[in-house]
């Protein structure tokens, strides 16, 4: 393409297709994170005894890695279904915040679009899209929707495909590779970058302490109690810090 074809218009009124392409490009670094996470889920799920269809259904219907791993672990601990669901859904409650944050930008979109967007509102698509909307709050609704569509174009298919790869080839990994420890390492790696404020650290500390002290509680209910206490600790620490600052 000749350099002279670049018009000064492109920046101010970027066509819809370019919003889509920009979204796709912005999502590429996140895609690299998704592949190992999804493969790991495929591997761990098949190790736990799920077949490929069940493993794929998890990744397609839920698309939320941390809660999928949580559910898998609790099922292996023989926890009752109610506890499995309550704890895994608690992991996903943060997404209610994503849903709120998207309303000013996408609230006017047709219902079917909002439904699709909600289904694909994962950590990575939220983080990428939200940054863009903060940077260009005045972009048109169509551009904002197109950008989101661009972001999820690599993310979601890669999530499914990598889960499938993990599920199909993971069964061939011999047990001496200590795969039981894939989940702890993955979770620690996901939590560690979030431990950047005192309330987050305090919440994590109470969560660990509570889970260990309450390990005797039947049906894996100790974790749920510990998580509740940890959430309150985070919130109270935040209030305390604010009160001290003023």
């Amino acid at each position: 393409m000749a350099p002279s074809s670049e018009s000064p218009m492109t920046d101010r009124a970027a066509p819809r297709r370019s919003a889509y392409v920009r979204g796709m490009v912005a999502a590429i670094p996140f895609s690299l994170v998704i592949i190992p996470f999804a493969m790991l889920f495929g591997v761990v799920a098949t190790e736990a005894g799920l077949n490929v269809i069940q493993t794929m259904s998890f990744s397609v219907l839920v698309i939320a890695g941390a809660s999928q791993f949580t559910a898998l672990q609790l099922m292996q601990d023989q926890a009752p279904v109610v506890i499995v669901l309550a704890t895994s859904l608690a992991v996903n409650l943060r997404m209610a915040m994503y849903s709120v944050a998207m309303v000013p930008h996408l609230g006017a979109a047709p219902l079917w679009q909002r439904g699709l967007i909600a289904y694909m509102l994962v950590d990575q698509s939220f983080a990428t899209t939200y940054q863009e909307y903060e940077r260009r709050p005045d972009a048109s609704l169509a551009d904002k929707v197109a950008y989101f569509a661009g972001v999820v174009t690599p993310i979601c298919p890669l999530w499914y495909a990598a889960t499938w790869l993990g599920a199909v080839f993971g069964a061939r990994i011999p047990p001496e590779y200590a795969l039981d420890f894939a989940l702890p390492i993955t979770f620690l790696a996901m939590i560690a970058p979030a431990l950047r404020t005192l309330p987050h650290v305090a919440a994590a500390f109470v969560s660990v302490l509570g889970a260990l002290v309450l390990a005797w509680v039947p049906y894996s209910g100790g974790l749920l109690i510990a998580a509740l206490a940890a959430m309150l600790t985070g919130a109270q620490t935040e209030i305390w810090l604010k009160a001290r600052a003023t």
Partner: protein
Amino acid sequence: MTLDPLEVWIVILALGIGTFLIRFSFLGLVGDRPLPEWLLRHLRYTSVAVMPGLVAPLVLWPQATGGVPDPARLAAAAAALGLGIVTRNALWAIFGGVATLYLTPVLLGLL
């Protein structure tokens, strides 16, 4: 150990529906109403409240060793946590943790 297939399907479907409803909640149904500050304050800490507690017993009392603390797993957990805090990059933390998990038995064997 086998998981009951019916139970697995119930968890998959209910978790899928529940997760969708959480994501759809405000965008789809409630609309542009600001959340009360106290609720936001608690939602901020949900991930960090559940995930460390889930991991802690697996790190200290791994089933693979019959519940006895294992130096390789402890070192791997410390490496993943430390690298994640320092680099703020989950991928580095995973690679570091996995490398530590496999290298610790080798290093201990050399001593």
